């Protein structure tokens, strides 16, 4: 307008090239999977006991190195990849939905809500009489994730209602709600911990700090299923999340059904968290850190950010868990401690940068 487009026809092809194509997405998924597999393979070789993978693979079933590799490390690494993927994906979706770079399922209290109801369900499935009602033993595989899902969804709706009722939401209002809710959930969990038997209480504490717990193939498959469902649901919502980058009214004026998009994202996040929390407890900061790194790599288009956050989240948690089980020699650290040690300073850095942005922004 002010100056004639200097490039003319020569400048057009670049502007005409699509940024996101089915092919680029396929490449992203393929390279994400490849990178994750490399990290997982490397993690399988790390541990207090040296394991020769080929020899272990060929060894008889009761060979100790084979048991260590295939019975302990591999299931744990697979679980780390699934849980990390779920948390990374959920974090990226929440940051886009709420336009808040500090959001993640843990910070917003969604993991806390899932853990709270999940633990209540777990205790109920072990009380005498639960079996008679058909809730004991194997049924806990259904009951605990279902309760965790209900807890995650209820907390997400609570967060949303706080965001709505306070009118113009400052990013910090949401976070405060999450922090308060987390403190509340932790108090109730500690209370239950005090009431429950010692050996069960020990398991409960693992939920609060965040520890990967291999409960069995069925539980791992459940986490994989919810992760797949969450990925499909969020991939279908990626365009709406892009439009929501313009704010709610901007998205509405582009024909986006904002209420429906919000429901889809909360549903997906609750599914992801419900798959992850029963096998890992409340692992923090994965969903916070990973989307930031991803956006530096692939830009802000959610069609790329969401899948990339899933792959990177998986790889990140595999690395964190490997560190958790090896840095102290034979004593194992809860992986939630490792992610918090990385995530705490990162969170403060983001908070500080955001405050500077708000001061510096003219409009």
């Amino acid at each position, binding site marked *: *307008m*002010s*100056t*004639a*487009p*200097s*490039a003319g026809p020569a*400048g*057009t092809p*670049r*502007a*005409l*090239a*699509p*940024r*996101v*194509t*089915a092919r680029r997405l396929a490449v992203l998924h393929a390279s994400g999977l490849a990178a994750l597999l490399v990290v997982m393979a490397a993690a399988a070789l790390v541990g207090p006991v040296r394991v020769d993978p080929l020899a272990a693979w060929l060894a008889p079933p009761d060979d100790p190195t084979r048991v260590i590799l295939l019975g302990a490390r591999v299931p744990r690494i697979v679980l780390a990849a699934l849980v990390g993927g779920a948390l990374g994906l959920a974090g990226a979706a929440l940051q*886009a939905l709420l*336009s*808040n*770079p500090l959001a993640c399922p843990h910070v917003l209290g969604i993991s806390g809500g899932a853990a709270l109801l999940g633990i209540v369900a777990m205790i109920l499935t072990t009380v005498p009489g639960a079996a008679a009602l058909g809730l004991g033993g194997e049924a806990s595989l259904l009951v605990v994730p279902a309760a965790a899902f209900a807890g995650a969804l209820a907390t997400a709706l609570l967060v949303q209602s706080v965001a709505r009722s306070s009118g113009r939401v400052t990013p910090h209002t949401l976070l405060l709600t999450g922090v308060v809710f987390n403190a509340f959930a932790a108090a109730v969990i500690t209370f239950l911990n005090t009431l429950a038997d010692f050996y069960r209480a020990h398991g409960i504490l693992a939920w609060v700090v965040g520890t990967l717990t291999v409960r069995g193939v069925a539980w791992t498959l459940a986490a994989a299923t919810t992760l797949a469902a969450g990925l499909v649901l969020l*991939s*279908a919502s*990626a*365009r709406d999340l*892009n*439009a*929501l*980058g*313009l*704010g709610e*009214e*901007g998205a*509405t*004026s*582009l*024909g*986006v*059904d904002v209420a429906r998009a919000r429901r889809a994202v909360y549903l997906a996040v609750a599914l992801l968290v419900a798959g992850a929390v029963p096998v890992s407890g409340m692992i923090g900061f994965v969903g916070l850190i990973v989307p930031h790194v991803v*956006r530096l790599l692939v*830009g*802000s*288009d959610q*069609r790329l950010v969401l899948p990339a956050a899933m792959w990177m989240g998986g790889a990140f948690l595999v690395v964190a868990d490997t560190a958790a089980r090896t840095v102290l020699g034979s004593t194992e650290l809860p992986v939630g401690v490792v992610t918090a040690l990385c995530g705490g300073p990162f969170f403060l850095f983001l908070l500080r940068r955001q405050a500077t942005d708000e001061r510096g922004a003219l*409009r």
Partner: protein
Amino acid sequence: MTGAAARADVALEARGVAVRYGAREALREVDARLAPGELLGIIGPNGSGKSTLVRVLAGVRAPDAGEVRLGGRPLADVPRRERARLIALVPQETHLSFPIQVRELVLLGRAPHTGPFGWERAEDLRAAHEAMLRAGVLEFAERSVDQLSGGERQRAVLARALAQQPRILLLDEPTAFLDLRHAVLLLDLVRDLCRSEGLAVAAVLHDLNLAAMYCDRLVLLSRGRVHAAGDAAAVLNYRDLCDVYGTELYVAPNDVTGQLVVLPLSREHRERLASRTDKAL
């Protein structure tokens, strides 16, 4: 821009519209009509309901009473994606949650045209390209929106709206952050689109002189009601403007455009004028 069907008369009309924010009534019994090829100016003091009227016309806020009709249909009954293909809104401020490139912003305008997973087809890329060319943002298509100047940013947002290929364009203070040159360049472009494409445009304008110069018709809002509507010469009369804006003004035609010039007066000039009037009495 589009086929003959879309070229058909798609007038936008507000009838007896009222909007309340809690106890505060932002609009009351407002009637307004916007026809193809027309540039309508919405003017009025702060808090008179200009932005609210634009939001209601755009369908992002449902009126509490009355209705908005699009081409004879109630706007509320038009499916949201179809509505977004017909009406584009440029809000007062565009706040982006995450930094994106200009062309990504413009491509967002294709959202109502693309399929469920949002893959852009060749025609979407063509439309975005044409919109960027028109708005003069092609040369910084790859720049991040948050690194643009106010004028560049406003043009990028306009390009986003044009990429929607709308029949109706609603602008909320499009010139608010622009200097004089960029303001007239933007309005020149918008008026060209009215004339050549038959685009219907409603623009909230703070600058009454720009409103007088560019708009075919004006709607003057005062405390949520239509105080006056019609062509500039009728609406911009001294008495109405002084009443509505609540301050003494100088209103007179100018030699160049023949349009009215509206000049607010400082206290010094208001007092001088008052004493002169007293003497005359």
